[in-house]
């Protein structure tokens, strides 16, 4: 009789233990940046929450691949419970009804947990919180101080206006045939950043109209032409420019703050790249915002138990402890205010990495959503924007081109 009782008791314990452990599946992309970090996050989280088991899916190569996979999995019914997605891509999931709003979990706690309104805006659509930022980057200037000195400039009095930057870039460009003054990508996100610096917005509040065909838009797009004509900017592709800067033949490069580690490693002993904040081109700084790249986290599970466990995980990775792990391991800026304000988390890190402090302060001050254009043609129009920027760089009139572009977008996006 006894063995049977033991067995029954054991079975009971086993089921209880089993019932207590909730398993959540996590999806992420870009293993070259994230693989180690994800494991560290999962381990640290499970140590605090022994009742929740985090299972990490095999990563997707890029955020674009990742969203494709999530869509495929949603069709097949094997969607993971939580997913890290590109900050400009969660809307694709929201559009198909896959994301679970987080408002009920946040309640009125948002501010207390370190999510400022600017940071919350990264994952909001129509008043609902669909995603929370996990890592952030904005457009900054990477400067080669050696070339600046050679051209007669000084890092201490580095220009803080676009006019000043163009003037300095022109001088660097004159140094010799191989050296270029300045480069910026002809790309939707870069354009939105320049637009934000001029106080402009790509769309109106309810996304029913394009709003970059005004003075702010013309001036921002016109910068591309000024860079080319006044400072001799070459029409490099992104990869070519990313090779030129670490090689020391490019003076000033406008690029994502997330590339800081790669550039510092690429430049090696040759020179020490310096990060400078993007110039602000309007007097009304309340209108300034910089569209924020990076990743956000979304909840996809529809199961109530899993949702509770998923929220614990989301709260942890977007909270100060998780953010500290992400910042120290990826080079991205944090998406939580507490981790920046409280020196105990990253004080030492910033003391050792002044470039990171510049980039992360810019994120904390001016973070804003990276506008995704609505509807089926939303991604396609970003390539049209890039094409127009190429035309402007090569001499087309900025005002006329931008006006044309805005009209094309309105038609394409069904706004009229």
């Amino acid at each position, binding site marked *: 009789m006894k063995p049977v009782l033991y067995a029954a008791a054991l079975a009971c314990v086993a089921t209880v233990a089993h019932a207590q452990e909730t398993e959540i599946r996590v999806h992420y992309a870009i293993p070259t940046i994230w693989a180690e970090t994800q494991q560290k996050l999962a381990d640290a989280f499970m140590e605090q929450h022994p009742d929740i088991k985090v299972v990490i899916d095999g990563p997707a190569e890029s955020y*674009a691949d990742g969203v*494709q996979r*999530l*869509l*495929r999995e*949603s*069709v097949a019914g094997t969607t993971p419970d939580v997913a890290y997605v590109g900050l400009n891509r969660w809307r*694709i999931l929201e559009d*198909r*009804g896959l994301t679970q709003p987080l408002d009920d979990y946040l309640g009125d706690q948002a501010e207390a947990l370190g999510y400022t309104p600017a940071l919350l805006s990264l994952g909001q659509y129509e008043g609902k919180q669909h995603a929370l930022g996990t890592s952030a980057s904005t457009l900054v200037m990477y400067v080669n101080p050696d070339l600046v000195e050679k051209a007669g400039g000084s890092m201490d009095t580095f220009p803080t206006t676009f006019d000043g930057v163009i003037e300095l870039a022109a001088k660097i460009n004159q140094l010799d*045939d*191989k*050296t*270029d003054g300045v480069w910026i990508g*002809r790309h939707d996100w870069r354009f939105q950043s320049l637009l934000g610096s001029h106080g402009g917005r790509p769309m109106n509040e309810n996304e029913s109209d394009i709003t970059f065909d005004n003075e702010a838009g013309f001036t921002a797009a016109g910068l591309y032409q000024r860079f080319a004509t006044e400072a001799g900017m*070459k*029409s*490099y*592709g992104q*990869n*070519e420019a990313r*090779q*030129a800067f670490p*090689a020391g*033949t490019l003076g000033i490069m406008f690029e994502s703050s997330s590339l800081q580690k790669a550039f510092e490693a690429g430049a090696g002993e040759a020179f020490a790249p310096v990060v400078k904040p993007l110039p602000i081109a309007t007097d009304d700084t309340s209108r300034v915002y910089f569209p924020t790249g990076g990743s956000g986290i979304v909840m996809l599970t529809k199961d109530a138990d899993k949702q509770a466990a998923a929220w614990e995980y989301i709260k942890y990775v977007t909270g100060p402890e998780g953010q500290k792990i992400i910042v120290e391991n990826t080079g991205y800026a944090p998406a939580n205010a507490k981790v920046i304000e409280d020196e105990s988390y990253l004080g030492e890190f910033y003391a050792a990495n002044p470039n990171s402090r510049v980039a992360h302060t810019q994120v904390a001050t001016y973070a804003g959503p990276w506008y995704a254009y609505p509807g*089926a*043609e939303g*991604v*396609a129009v970003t*390539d049209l924007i*890039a*094409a*127009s920027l*190429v*035309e402007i760089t*090569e001499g087309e009139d900025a005002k006329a081109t931008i006006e044309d572009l805005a009209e094309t977008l309105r038609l394409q996006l069904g706004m009229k």
Partner: protein
Amino acid sequence: MTALSLATRERLTDIWLAGPATLAMVVFIFLPVAIVAMLSLTDYQFGATTFSWIGLENYQKLFSSTLGRKAITNTLIYVAVVIPGSVVLGLLVALGLHRMNHWAPRLSNVFRTVYFLPVAATLVAMSVAWQMVLHPSLGVVNQGLVAVNLPPQNWLGDRGLVLYTLSIIGIWQTVGYNMVLFLAGLLAIPDELYDAAEVDGAGSPWSSFWTVTWPMLGPTTLFVMVITAANAFRVFETVATLTKGGPAFASDTLVYALYREGFVYFKAGYSSAITIVFFAILLVLTLLQFRVVERKVHYR
């Protein structure tokens, strides 16, 4: 035990042998093609729960929109440059190496391997090398141009130039393959024909080429052209790794547009329509290829 008749047994064996492969073809090739053909008549968005039938609108858009037309003309220009370039170069290299084989067989073999390397190498990895070589300021090509006082070019960033740069990379990649085919064709020409030509007074290299080599290579040349065309229409890796169709769609090609629309823009319906058009082009080329292969050398 009832014995089946010999004919029935043979028939069963036929089905047993050909059946599994046929089934696999139907399930993995014909069925997906049918689904893609069906999707091409819808506005289906990848991952969406609903779609509606829009008839031939996707096809109309491909042939009438600026971007669709651009992808088609770019592909045709690319094919039009790559076919003659790689066929003529392939033939010249094969002729040279074939002759060299008489006086320096080892060297000829070394060259053969060198010319064949681009075919064997991974094009994506090679693209990275090309990117370095063609870099506007750091690349050896432009540094060479500057050294001899020629203006440097922006090979991959100039809208008027980028497609031709990609074509040259395409030629570089296919010359070796065409060379091998031509070498095989040259080996198949019997020596007696050259002797006969010499007796008839066509002994100079020039006239023996036109009277013997070129006509005897006719079928090989046609075959090489069809193969090159089929490969050139498929151009994707260099576009995807070097230019992403840019700048401003200047190097957008059919297969890259297919990928872009389907996997970047998630427009599965439109992307399916491009796939069907591409499929039709390749089908025509394949039929042509069958014809060419089946046609025997009619000079003998």
